[in-house]
């Protein structure tokens, strides 16, 4: 792993030929994103490290405020001042048509640069948390989807509109040719989210970041949207980074799962391992806090003790230790645990599995 991280480049564009085909499309290494607000520094991300596998669905779970959205925005290089990526890197492994890969270190690109803008919406697309507010109220759906086509594919307005109707059709938008000329306020929440997905998919990105795309929707609509996303994922052959609170959705959608806690990854593992053999005490606590089929009705649901500390606080040691059932005094509250790789390729940050200490936390 370290040989990928440590790649040194000389070119101004930070692009380098990579000999072996990459199984990951994006890799995050020790990512730190802070917000320098009037009230102090909010350490939203404190060394996030994980991989987004190619052509798979990676689920990201964690309580509210643990930094899921900030991670997504950091990948897109869309963190706005007073926020800033202060440390770490985001690596995009781009694969050309002939299978050769080039690496782009996104964290080295200026967020306004042309290189970064060519990647956004084109190679990496993003769907936001709230369908109600993520479309611009004063432009029609067609205008907003066309914008991406015209920008990245250089087509004229006419053609962009045709492609917009086409993509709306593909995401299952009813009456696509009417809807293109409608304004967001004329659509239901589900339709808006479909429009957002259409916008995200418009340029056939290799990675789609979906930030809680269904949280605001009712269960039926949610199921339909998830269906569409799953279908398109295998059609286009893209990767999806799927952020959610909902472990049920994770079970349905994800191939691999990253569990985040307070700006760090607690655990990354294949979806089955997460549900049947969780390693991190936080993952276990999370699983205990939701109802599950096949568990005895006598067994009570158990909310996790306490609340997520706010990102301004400075907890020493493992960020989860104040709430942890397996807390080991003088260990967990002193050092930050490092990443332990298990034999079956899972990653966990906990002193239960090794005494590796984070050096640069």
């Amino acid at each position, binding site marked *: 792993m370290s040989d990928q991280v440590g790649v040194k480049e000389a070119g101004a564009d930070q692009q380098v030929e990579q000999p072996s085909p990459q199984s990951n499309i994006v890799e995050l290494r020790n990512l730190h994103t802070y917000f320098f607000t009037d009230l102090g520094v909010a350490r939203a991300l404190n060394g996030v490290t994980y991989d987004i596998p190619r052509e798979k669905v990676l689920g990201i779970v964690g309580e509210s405020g643990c930094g899921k959205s900030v991670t997504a925005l950091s990948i*897109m290089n869309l963190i706005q001042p007073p926020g800033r990526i202060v440390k770490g890197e985001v690596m995009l492994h781009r694969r050309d048509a002939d299978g050769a890969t080039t690496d782009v270190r996104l964290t080295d690109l200026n967020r306004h640069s042309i290189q970064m803008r060519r990647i956004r919406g084109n190679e990496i697309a*993003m769907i*936001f*948390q709230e369908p109600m*507010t993520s479309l611009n109220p*004063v432009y029609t759906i067609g205008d907003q989807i066309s914008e991406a086509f015209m920008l990245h594919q250089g087509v004229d307005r006419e053609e962009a509109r045709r492609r917009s109707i086409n993509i709306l059709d593909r995401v299952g938008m009813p009456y696509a040719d009417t809807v293109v000329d409608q304004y967001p306020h004329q659509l239901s929440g589900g339709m808006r989210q479909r429009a957002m997905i259409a916008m995200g998919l418009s340029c056939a990105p290799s990675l789609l970041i979906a930030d809680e795309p269904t949280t605001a929707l009712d269960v039926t609509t949610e199921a339909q949207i998830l269906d569409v996303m799953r279908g398109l994922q295998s059609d286009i052959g893209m990767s999806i980074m799927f952020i959610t609170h909902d472990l049920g959705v994770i079970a349905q959608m994800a191939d691999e799962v990253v569990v985040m806690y307070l700006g760090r990854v607690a655990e990354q593992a294949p979806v089955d391992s997460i549900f049947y053999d969780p390693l991190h005490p936080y993952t276990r606590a999370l699983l205990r806090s939701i109802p599950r089929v096949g568990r005895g009705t006598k067994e009570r649901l158990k909310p996790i003790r306490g609340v997520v500390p706010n990102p301004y606080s400075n907890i020493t040691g493992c960020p989860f230790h104040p709430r942890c059932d397996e807390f080991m005094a003088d260990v967990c509250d002193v050092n930050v645990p490092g990443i332990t790789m298990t034999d079956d390729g899972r990653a966990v940050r906990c002193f239960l599995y090794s005494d590796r200490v984070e050096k640069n936390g």
Partner: protein
Amino acid sequence: MISYIIRRLGYMLITLVFVTIVGFFIIELPPGSYLEFHIQSLRQQGGDVTPDQIQALERRYGLGDPVHIRFYKWISGFPRGDFGQSFQHQRPVGELIWSRLGYTLLISVATLIVSWGIAILVGVYSATHRYTIPDYLITVLQFIGLAIPNFLLALVLMIFLQQTFGMRVGVLFSREFRDAPFSIAKMIDLLSNIWVPIVILGVAGTAWTSRVMRANLLDVLNMQYVQTARAKGIHERKVIWKHAVRNALHPLVMTLGMALPGIISGEVVVSTVLNLPTSGPLFFQALIQQDMYLAGTFLVFFAVALLVGNLLADIMLAGLDPRIQYR
């Protein structure tokens, strides 16, 4: 849309009726009758006023009539352009006010356009450069711009222009153009004079509008759809101007209804200080002399200007925002 405008016009007409009632109320308000004041001034001019003359005057202004008849007499003249008689000037009010109202409107509208143009640029700049020195500087200037009374600014600018450039402030046209027919040269002459009141009036308007614009834009920049636009890979400049500013303009247009009274108020005061041939000097003079038909008519027309301005703002808003329903 058309029916929406017609309905709005209907409401406007009703408000207008009430506006004239208020105007008439103000005409009737001063203690003692305006006739007494008039007779007094006639006597002061050396003339002797006989009881016959007084009676003739009373009959002419219908002083013997009850209030509603007098009100009716006054407004029934409106369609004919008859707004009563100015005692002080011994001329019909209608003859006195038109050109002055016209210049007041000209100055007000020009101020509005200029100050909005500048304010939008300034507001966008300071919202996109938050926490920088220029932004703090702009904020300070905005506070000061709002704190200086416009008549004071008029005085200071007037003194400054006269002392440093020997410019004659207080006219709209130079002497040679005053009675000349319309021509390009006359327009240029007007422009070379009219910028003074526009600058004075524009200071407060610009300060206020740019603050509103800054706050609106900051709100909009926090909206998800701005991030959506960025996530599409659109250039930041286009994100700001196409996606954010467009949305930040609505609340601004909504405040048009509040900005206009301020500007007209300011125009009336500033033109009094500068002694411009607009409504201001005549209006205040009329108030002090209790020449109430003149003052009341001015007031009604100020209100008409505001009502029309609000109507235009509403129509503009409807054109700007697809969410507005024509109820």
